[in-house]
């Protein structure tokens, strides 16, 4: 690929130009590379969170063990939850959002390529900031939802909570920027002919997820600001001694926290909605109903937050209202599950690893969803709340649901992203080991919870009778780890020796399969015209496709092929801006005014340079013949 034209030189820094090598990754604004960065980083943090989980499972394997102290256990609980949610599962979704979105809608990149890079760097630095807390006198220890006033400076003297506040704020900014970027991309950058109702369902789920982020993140941002003011400046938001109410934190947190659950699960639902049709060789059953259900789930997500707070004494009226709104979420969710089953029905099902994970998702998520329905019954929820029953529920949703869905996505799109096939035999082994390990670990949690084991206890006495199922669960956790190890071996093998993937290894349906694997930097040599859902399938099998309108005839007009394709220039600014913000946040943790000032000044300077630099742009000549 030849670069035909470089941008004009503006500003202080020489604009980076290299398209290969280390600096090309640091300065990249290519959504595919950013997606890959998200992918590896998220996977790294998944392993970190997993190791934290294993330590906890070892501690709980037997009654009265003292492998770790109560404080250390609380740190592990907090960091495991925070890491898995904010640093592993969400960014793994983001990896696919970044990589796949432009490919799925026939675009060259996202709307704001540099902001996209900024999101990644803020995520990486936020993750690092959270995790270096271990080295600076202790990690955050008040649980992933950090209930006040356990987080206050009276009851929490260390720096852990300060790391937590600043780290989460960085991640919040990162996610907010991503959300805006993706919504604008989806609204503005679709290929011609791709109406909203022709978008792949994955894109719909991404749109819903982005809106959820957009509208729910501010609540936790505010809660964290309040907490910061309480801790740093002696404000009284959650200080009962001055009339403050700790429950305000819970409300604001869950106004964010409940949509967050759907932020985690919707991407997996989107992936499954792509994988099932491909491997049953049928279109998604009830596209409109699935899309509408997705939107409805996203909307309802804002009306149920208090069901996390049935035990705080809101009274039976409020509890009843939230019990009923919560139950309604089961309706669109049920619709989706039945539509997925109907997609398989009558199909010609190929049992690839991606499909297996999708089926795993379907069954395990159903269990998690159904125990969720049980939680909605407020009166009996008072028994389950804050027990291992709840822990079972959300691990069925987060692992059996989100993570299995994401693994389906990995097996499905890995060949597109890396140009090589994953080993299907190892993949299937990995799947079954993971499925078994997962159920052995987490199904007993249902029993443990109802037999009286509260969450977040670092030890339990033998007399409670909880030893047996805890031991089973610990064994399961190691089986699950073996499943993850098999996957890692598979990835390593594939990257080294894997069979080369052609453009369309799965006989796919959507646009990404119409271009090489991995796609060239400009994605599409010619931007396709989309006249139906599943456009690639329609092109391959016109007799099976539902032509919604007569497709246009080819024209010779293809100025880009002649004059080159315009792409955004790489830039130093995203990582510089992210660094400046992180320096400020780090200064915030240590209440170091000069460091904060340095961060603020750095941020202002970076923003200014950013805007002066402009988007730039290079023009490349596409390779070969499309």
């Amino acid at each position, binding site marked *: 690929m030849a670069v035909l034209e470089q941008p004009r030189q503006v500003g202080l820094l020489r604009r980076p130009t290299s398209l290969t090598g280390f600096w090309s990754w640091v300065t990249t604004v290519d959504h595919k590379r950013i997606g890959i960065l998200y992918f590896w980083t998220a996977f790294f943090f998944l392993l970190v969170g997993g190791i934290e989980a294993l330590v906890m499972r070892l501690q709980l394997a037997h009654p009265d063990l003292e492998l770790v102290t109560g404080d250390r256990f609380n740190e592990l609980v907090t960091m495991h939850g925070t890491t898995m949610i904010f640093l592993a599962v969400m960014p793994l979704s983001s990896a696919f959002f970044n990589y796949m979105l432009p490919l799925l809608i026939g675009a060259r990149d996202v709307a704001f390529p540099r902001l996209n890079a900024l999101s990644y760097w803020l995520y990486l630095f936020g993750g690092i900031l959270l995790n270096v807390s271990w080295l600076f006198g202790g990690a955050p220890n008040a649980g992933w939802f950090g209930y006040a006033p356990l987080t206050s400076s009276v009851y929490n003297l260390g720096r852990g909570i300060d790391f937590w506040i600043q780290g989460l704020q960085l991640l919040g900014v990162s996610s907010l920027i991503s959300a805006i970027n993706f919504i604008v991309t989806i*609204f503005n950058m679709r290929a011609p002919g791709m109406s909203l109702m022709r978008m792949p369902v994955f894109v719909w789920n991404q749109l819903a997820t982005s809106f959820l982020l957009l*509208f729910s993140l501010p609540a936790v941002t505010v809660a964290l600001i309040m907490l910061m003011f309480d801790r740093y400046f002696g404000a009284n938001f959650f200080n009962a001694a001055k009339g403050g*109410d700790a429950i305000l934190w819970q*409300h604001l947190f869950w*106004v964010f926290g409940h949509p967050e659950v759907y932020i985690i699960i919707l991407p997996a639902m989107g992936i499954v909605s792509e994988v099932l049709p491909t491997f049953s060789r049928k279109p998604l059953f009830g596209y409109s109903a699935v899309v509408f259900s997705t939107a409805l789930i996203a909307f309802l997500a804002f009306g149920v937050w208090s069901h996390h707070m049935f035990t705080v*004494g*809101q009274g039976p*009226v409020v509890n009843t209202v939230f019990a009923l709104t919560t139950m309604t979420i089961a309706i669109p969710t049920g619709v989706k599950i039945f539509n997925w089953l109907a997609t398989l029905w009558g199909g010609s099902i190929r049992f690839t690893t991606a499909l297996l994970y999708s089926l795993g998702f379907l069954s395990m998520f159903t269990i998690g969803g159904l125990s969720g329905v049980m939680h909605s019954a407020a009166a009996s929820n008072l028994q389950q709340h804050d027990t291992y029953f709840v822990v079972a529920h959300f691990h069925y949703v987060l692992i059996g649901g989100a993570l299995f869905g994401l693994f389906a996505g990995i097996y499905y799109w890995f060949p597109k992203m890396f140009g090589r096939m994953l080993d299907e035999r190892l993949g299937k082994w990995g799947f079954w080991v993971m499925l078994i390990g997962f159920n052995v670990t987490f199904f007993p949690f249902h029993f443990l919870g109802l037999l009286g084991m509260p969450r977040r206890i670092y030890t339990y006495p033998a007399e409670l009778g909880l030893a047996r199922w805890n031991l089973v669960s610990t064994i399961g956790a190691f089986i699950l780890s073996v499943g993850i190890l098999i996957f890692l071996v598979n990835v390593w093998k594939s990257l080294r020796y894997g069979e080369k993937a052609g453009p369309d290894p799965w006989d796919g349906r959507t646009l990404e399969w119409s271009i090489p694997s991995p796609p060239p930097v400009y994605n599409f040599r010619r931007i396709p015209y989309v006249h139906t859902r599943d456009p690639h399938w329609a092109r391959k099998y016109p007799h099976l496709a539902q032509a919604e309108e007569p497709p246009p005839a080819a024209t010779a007009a293809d100025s880009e092929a002649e004059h080159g394709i315009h792409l955004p220039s790489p830039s130093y600014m995203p990582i510089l801006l992210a660094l400046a913000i992180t320096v400020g946040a780090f200064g915030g943790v240590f209440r170091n005014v000069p460091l904060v000032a340095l961060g603020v000044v750095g941020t202002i300077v970076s923003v200014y340079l950013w805007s002066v630099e402009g988007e730039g742009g290079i023009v490349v000549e596409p390779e070969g013949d499309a």
Partner: protein
Amino acid sequence: MNEREAARAHGAVRGHAEAHGAHEGAHVVPTSTYLKVGLVLAVITAVEFGIVYVPALKPVLIPLLLILSAAKFVLVAGFFMHLKFDRWVLAGFFAAGLILALGTYLGLGAIFAHRGG
């Protein structure tokens, strides 16, 4: 429209923009409209300032103030922020945020009031 032509030369403008006119300056709002809106805003503020000191209005002060400030809000958003003239999708986004915020925080406030204390 120069800008549109420039953009088209880059091949960036979609047909839609052409069909409906480019978004910038598509609807020319005369300066006098802005000045009138500014005047009305000033007058409403003066009225608000006045009525809070009228004891007789105390019972209806809350709805009255809410209506007046809502009017100011709508005027600024509609005219100064161009929502009245721009594509509905912008108003849609903003309304979504506004309605969600109103719904969520009214609910939250109601729960807090219900909680007493």
